[in-house]
């Protein structure tokens, strides 16, 4: 079910417009500058003048904020050379200007037609993001788009100081098709959509502490969640990583023998765990209150 302001259905520009204060967004290297991919022509593929990502600045309740939004409908929101470099530049600016950043993920990962450039772009973005956070800058990821947050995108998300997901937000390094192709349908049946949602989807990520806020599939719900998350501290330092090491070791120790998400939800103590995928969001949040694992800033 999607609302009139569905995050899932919206495009990158609609999301940015609805998320920020009205009319406040100013784009950097906008489509009028026609900085498209120099590599897609090799594959006779159409280019897009923004290369599938928009970056710029606006305000959120009057506070200056840098924003990047991926367009999942262009090449699956995948990272190519120009696409990646725009986000790298934004994060480098965030560090020197000490301005917080929102990253609106909607991506299948590295763009294979420019795989080497995309892969190194992921590494550059991660470094710029971590350096910004070590300088005290918050970088918040918002995940709930059509393409999900896969591959290299999931690794950038892992560097963020906080993640906001909706039920539709899937986070995973290897996508369902990739696992099935490499390991067989017995390991992962990519056509089993229920399996995909409960293994990689927003509810599971929120339950195990892989995300910090759970939003309805609505642009205004994401805005509200962003305002709450931005009030917290996003600094990355040695203490945070020591705490994250303990948090993740604890997770593997506690859930490492689980075969299915249902096993984990049972272990967490959620009542009627098989009902979780079908629950409306308010009932879901009520059912898991005080039970879910939380990152508590350890990311």
């Amino acid at each position: 079910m999607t609302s009139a302001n569905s995050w899932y259905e919206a495009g990158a520009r609609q999301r940015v417009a609805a998320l920020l204060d009205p009319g406040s967004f100013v784009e950097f290297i906008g489509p009028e500058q026609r900085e498209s991919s120099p590599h897609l022509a090799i594959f006779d593929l159409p280019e897009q003048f923004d290369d599938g990502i928009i970056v710029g600045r606006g305000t959120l309740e009057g506070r200056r904020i840098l924003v990047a939004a991926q367009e999942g409908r262009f090449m699956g929101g995948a990272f190519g050379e120009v696409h990646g470099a725009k986000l790298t530049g934004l994060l480098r600016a965030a560090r020197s200007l000490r301005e917080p950043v929102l990253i609106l993920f909607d991506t299948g990962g590295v763009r294979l037609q420019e795989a080497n450039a995309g892969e190194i772009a992921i590494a550059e973005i991660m470094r710029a993001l971590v350096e910004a956070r070590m300088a005290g800058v918050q970088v918040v990821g918002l995940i709930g788009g059509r393409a999900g947050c896969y591959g290299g995108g999931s690794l950038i998300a892992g560097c963020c100081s906080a993640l906001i997901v909706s039920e539709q937000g899937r986070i995973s390094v290897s996508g369902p098709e990739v696992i099935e192709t490499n390991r067989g349908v017995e390991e992962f049946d990519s056509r089993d959509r229920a399996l995909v949602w409960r293994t990689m989807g927003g509810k599971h990520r929120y339950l195990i502490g892989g995300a910090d806020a759970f939003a309805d599939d609505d642009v205004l719900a994401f805005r509200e969640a962003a305002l709450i998350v931005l009030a917290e501290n996003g600094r990355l330092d040695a203490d945070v990583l020591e705490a994250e090491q303990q948090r993740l070791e604890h997770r593997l120790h506690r859930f490492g023998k689980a075969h299915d998400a249902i096993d984990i939800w049972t272990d967490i103590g959620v009542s009627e765990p098989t009902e979780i995928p079908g629950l409306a969001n308010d009932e879901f949040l009520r059912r898991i209150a005080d039970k879910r694992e939380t990152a508590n800033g350890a990311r």
Partner: protein
Amino acid sequence: MELADILASLFPGGHEVAVTDNLISGSGIINAIKVHVIGIAGQSPLGCEGALILAGHVLEITRKGSAGPVLVLIDSSSQRMSRRDELLGLSECLTHLAKTLLLAGAQGHRTIGLLYGGSAAGAFIATALATGTLVALPGAHPAVMDLPSMARVTKLPIEVLKAKAEKTPVFAPGLENLAQTGAIHSVWNPDQSLAEQFFALLAEQISHDARDRLGESRGGRPKAASIAERVEKEASHA
């Protein structure tokens, strides 16, 4: 080069580097400098457990407060592709490892990756590409994705991909292709002392991420450096 030969050439005075379940850890001395070593051997995939074990080693190094260099030796495959790893949050575990390496770099440790075999995708990003300087040995074979898989995903015949790979380094697997994008600082000579080449690299001052400029000068990434710089400038002037 085999791992044992690499370690012997790096640490002629001996070392305490061990390999357990294809995870490398330990240390050695080069020219009176203690070098911490971690890594992946045997072209093995990197899953949740392995990533946390390596991250634990890096945190232990940074906790001790010494400023010695960290050498990351890599001969891996990709991230472990499994239902279980994704269920447990593989993205968080791999990223955690990358963050510990980036933190070590920020705390004054030189972090140097040595790619001596294979590596791909998430495992490559979480290890080799999270170091401050990445070098390789001839014969190393990094890949984002092998050509047959790429043919499946892009729905192009493999002959077509091979022909395109001749014309552009930007997508095809291989050390030379990746080096052109700026990901690889230099390729070492296996016939000369690795200890000397390591020491020469330590003497080079590397303060910021210059991989995009390197990719520009080598022709593999014509636009990344200038686009990133322009975004940074527009943000600062607005």
